[in-house]
């Protein structure tokens, strides 16, 4: 069975500070992992994905994610948060989505 878990319902950071949104996975076979973002009253938008290769994946809007096989994690990161990054973030494997993490960036 394929699944992902997002251990934090809510992450709060100050603008300009680095942010991390956590995701762990449980996958049989090769892990194909995704991050999506959902702004209020909108559909999900693709941020980035890990298929194979470099463990550090770069995506849209300055986001990146680090694939860690030994820790079965795929954490989303950004060096300097913006207020406009405030949204709901989903980690996913195939069609299984995590519960979502609400990121709030305060000015």
């Amino acid at each position: 069975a394929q699944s992902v878990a997002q251990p934090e319902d809510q992450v709060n950071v100050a603008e300009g500070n680095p942010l991390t949104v956590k995701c762990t996975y449980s996958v049989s076979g090769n892990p194909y992992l995704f991050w999506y973002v959902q702004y209020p009253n909108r559909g999900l938008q693709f941020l980035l994905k890990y298929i194979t290769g470099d463990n550090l994946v770069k995506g849209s809007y300055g986001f990146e994610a680090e694939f860690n096989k030994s820790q079965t994690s795929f954490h989303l990161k950004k060096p300097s948060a913006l207020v406009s990054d405030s949204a709901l973030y989903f980690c996913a494997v195939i069609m299984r989505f995590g519960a979502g993490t609400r990121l709030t960036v305060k000015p």
Partner: protein
Amino acid sequence: DTAVSQTPKYLVTQMGNDKSIKCEQNLGHDTMYWYKQDSKKFLKIMFSYNNKELIINETVPNRFSPKSPDKAHLNLHINSLELGDSAVYFCASSQLARGSTDTQYFGPGTRLTVL
């Protein structure tokens, strides 16, 4: 130029009614999906179609019947609506079957409220 579109955006109806939600994608993708997002924002796959053929049905009640007239369209018909059907329904598409390595493109969602 909307890639994945859904109609209607909002749907308010009484318990027991039958309603449909339409989805269209202009990306030329082979696979389309329906997801349900509940009030806690949890997103769950309902159905997946590849080239008009049902490939995934995730233990969804028989009251829900997807229909794909062609690979660009995937409609969702719901019979005998119940209060628990209230949710936001998202359509999505991807290039490959099952979308295992493929990015999914989501529609804007249809907010269904059953009174």
